[in-house]
């Protein structure tokens, strides 16, 4: 069984935000509009953190894209009362929107705050609905959602390789954020497969996970920034 | 007496209801255990919880039944309306 995971090289990331946008379009995440955004209900499956270290003038600004970490030991799935979120056998922490009752327990249980709630029914102007991604359903209001590692692409890739009668290879299945990243800072693949780049990268001396001490075992690794020699 | 029959029927119904309720809960919990086993989703935890929960409900139902039946049985002969 593959264990899908991501490696994000912070030395390559420029914080351009293409991943954030690609994610929102790929997953048909609602554009909530100014009023709702003002209430803090902006929906982002992929997000970018900006850290400021130090005081002026010796400030270091760091950017850090944040998908769902798809923990191997996810605190969110444990608490779901209806099995609307669970870790599947390939390690993806998935959301089943038609199953979710909207209690938001998983949302509050996630130490990384990656989940968010559809506070209202997502609306698009009539003309723009045509441009939604038909591979992913639009969520109804009242359910929790989050980054899915674009699992619908895995399904498509599976069908594709079945047609071509071959094994799933690296690059067949890549989430939208990784695909769009203009600087190639994001890698995706099977963490356990030695043929995949992520397998090697996650063992780099620069690799770290966010809040490893929580024991959630995130499957998203970061490569820390390098100093210039 | 018609009134009396109706009341008796209500009382029988309530005891039945209590048992249906308790059995319903038990079946529900067992079903959840079954599902958790099927999906390999922390079967042990579910089992542990059910071990506590199900007896509690049964004890309650038993007590209620005991009281209801006991009170009816413990009546003086005849008329329920006369003062004790």
């Amino acid at each position: 069984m593959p264990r899908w995971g991501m490696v994000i090289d912070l030395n390559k990331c420029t914080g351009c935000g293409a991943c954030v946008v690609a994610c929102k379009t790929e997953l048909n995440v609602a554009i909530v509009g100014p009023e709702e955004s003002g209430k803090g209900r902006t929906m982002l499956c992929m997000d970018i953190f900006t850290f400021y270290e130090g005081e002026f003038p010796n400030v270091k600004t760091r950017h850090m894209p944040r998908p769902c970490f798809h923990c191997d030991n996810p605190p969110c799935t444990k608490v779901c009362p209806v099995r609307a979120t669970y870790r599947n056998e390939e390690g993806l922490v998935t959301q089943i929107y038609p199953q979710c009752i909207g209690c938001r327990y998983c949302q509050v249980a996630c130490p990384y705050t990656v989940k968010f709630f559809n506070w209202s029914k997502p609306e698009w102007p009539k003309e723009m609905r045509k441009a939604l991604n038909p591979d992913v359903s639009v969520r109804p209001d009242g359910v929790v959602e989050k980054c899915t590692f674009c699992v619908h692409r895995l399904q498509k890739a599976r069908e594709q390789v079945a047609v071509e009668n071959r094994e799933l290879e690296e690059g067949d299945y890549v989430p939208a954020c990784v695909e769009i990243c203009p600087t190639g800072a994001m890698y995706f693949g099977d963490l356990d497969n030695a043929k995949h780049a992520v397998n090697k990268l996650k063992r780099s001396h620069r690799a770290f996970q966010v809040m490893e001490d929580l024991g959630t075992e995130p499957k998203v690794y970061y490569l820390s920034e390098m100093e210039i020699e | 007496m018609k009134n009396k029959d109706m009341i008796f029927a209500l009382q029988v119904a309530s005891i039945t209801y209590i048992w249906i309720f308790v059995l319903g809960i038990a079946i529900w919990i067992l079903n959840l255990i079954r599902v958790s086993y099927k999906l390999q989703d922390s079967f042990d935890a579910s089992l542990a919880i059910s071990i506590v929960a199900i007896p509690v409900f049964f004890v309650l139902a038993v007590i209620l039944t005991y009281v209801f039946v006991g009170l009816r049985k413990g009546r003086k002969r005849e008329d329920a309306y006369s003062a004790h």
Partner: protein
Amino acid sequence: MEISRREFLRLLGATGAGVSLAGLGCDSTWSVPDEMYERVVGAPGIETWKTSLCTLCPAGCGIKVRLIDGIPVAIGGNPLHPVNRGGVCPMANVGVEALFNPDRVTEPLRRVGARGEGKWEPVSWDEAIETVGSRLQGLRERNETNRLAFFTNHDNTLRSDLVARFMTAFGSPNLCVFGKNNASTLATYLTQGHKKPLSYDFKNIKLLINFGADFLDEGPSPVRFNQLYSEFRNRGEGRNVKIVHIDSRCSRTASISHEWLPVKPGTMAALALGIANVLIKDGQYDRGFVAANSFGFTDWKDRAGKVHRGFKALVEEDYYPEKVARITEIPARRIVELARTFATVESALVLAGGQAGNSSNGLYTLWAIECLNGLKGNYKDNGNISICQEPPFTELPEATMDEVSSKGLSRPGMTRSVTPFCFPENAVSLLPQAILQQHPYPIEVLFLANANPVFSATNQSDFVAALEKIPFTVSFNSFVDETSLYADFILPDHVFLEKYEVVHTVPTVPFSHLGMQQPVLEPLYNTRNTGDVLLQIARNIGGTVASSFPWPDYKECIQFHLQGIYERGAGTIFSERMDDAWLKFLKRRGWQVFEYSTFEEFWQVLLDNGGWWDPFPAETDFRTIFQTPSKRFEFFSQGLQREIRSQIPGTATGEEIRSLLQKWKIEARGDLAFLPHYESTRFDDSNPEFDLHLLPYNLITNIAGGGCVLPMMQELFGMLAREYWGSWIEFNPDTARKHGISEGDMVKVTSSKGSLEVKAKLLPTIKPGVVYMPVGLGHKAYGRFAKGIGVNPYEIFFEDYDSIGGVSSLTSTKVAVERIRGKEQA
């Protein structure tokens, strides 16, 4: 474990087709918009990909559009395109939103309400073009073709060339291109003698010093620079490029640089010269280059035998590090350190932009910075800086002109007559003045394409007045922007996914290239490509104007241009990446990588692959690079000298030059005026209570203003700042404390031009005493997603201009801030 697809989808919640919806009996009214539902329930869509080009900003990145049943749903980068190499910016990624934006102009419109009111009635294309044509015809009949003006934004498309040709053929000198001749172009002109964009080869550099150019969020190609910056940091052990960024705000570009020097606004010239000082004192500059290929480094004698001061003497005397430190507020030690690194690294490049060029001393600043490249000799044969090479398009015959046109064209342009600046063609901002004064003649017809000065000029109210004065204005925009609100006709252009276009010669790119834009779907509405409309208008006018444009439509015009490339067989169509050595080998032997039997085949492959490029630029030498009077790199600008002399009739006396400098508000006198120097910056000093510098900055979510029609970009406008659908103002925490402002407060920002209410953000990445506002929001038009969102800082910008270049200074604004209310009540 075998699981059916249906089960899989059910469990995963990714409802890939109608399966899960049907399977779960999920209520369609609750979950899915109707259109979506139909598509989801219906047969699986056919997925196709089409190559095209994004022209939401002038960079023109190659894109691949994903279409489902012919409807574009997503945009990704074209990996074959050598400029953006498969990357796209956030804006391009949601470009389909521009296509489906519900507030597009769907048909030609005629104004019915008052100007600026935004009331329109639909008209037919024929009628609209007829009306416009007859207006132009009227000008020609009266022999006043010069009374047509064309406002457009600078971009690198063939349409720009077409517009220029149209204006020439029609006979008007009033083609006003916003943002074309900016301060950088002029700095190139002063040092290198031409106004073409420069290309840079970053292959071998070890150090990059960036003076204020926010390349990652704006500029020639943000995607390319994001990739380049990332690559600079990841070339591998010992080969990484050290990046030093100089700006008063730690922009995103600065944040991924290795060092950030927070310079006082408007003092970058001093810093550059301070670095030069250390270089010269240490003798660490490229002596060979400076001696052989530069002019004015050392003191020199003119023909009259007068000794002029050289760059070396100036810098040595006036810009020692301690003094520069006082001016720039950067410690002398760091200046020396930076200069020493710059001196010792074998290949180091200096770039400039942004704030450096947008101040009242912008030209001198950029000039001083360019001199660092001169000192380092970055123009060597295998060198870094060169002129961008255009693709070998078919040479167009000169536009034919009859008497009317020639006469109109020979009249002076509007700007030249009013501007108080040395380089008048840049002073587009002063157009309103000329139009209002009707000096030297009134403008009767105005064409607008893309340019939106009513939003983005510091003197926007003047533009409104001017637009109200012009009797007939035609806008070619796809949306009703602030400027188009004042138009009489709107002849809507297609959105970029619906039309043919060519983008070529993106500045800074070291190889010649062109990207092909093709329609990925039939136009959604009754819109027309502006190129086609211009051709139609030209045809309607007839005569020489019509004969200058022999093409039936714009597509054929493009094909005509490309014919030359096909015939010459130069370069190659974008293709899967090939081994560089192999390409070189082929080229040396004069072989083409690909051969096409017909032009149609060439055209088809060009469309499919997205463009053409010549990976190996022609060798250039100093003769072609330096077109200055001395044919060398000029530290002392004879070009400027000549330019100034040309503005004075007869032989210029020192007195006359002095008064001219006086008029341009230049402090320097004598030789100093012709040398790069630190000209102290002018600020709005009208009110001592205005104690903070207000500076603008751009975001990648709104490159060149293109984000305002994309709701996703409006929502994520400040995604790094976590400000959505709104503007903010950035303070250093110290500055904020002094003004009693805390994070999230609403503050009133007041300048001499007006005031804005905006949310405060406290960041340690801002120099104290300076406040920054992002630009791009605060529209008063442009559809539902833009109108009334955020504030537009340009509204309160102090109006001032670069003394020589005439470019708007965006660093001269001073403001007072006042806390209105706290976060809670916000």
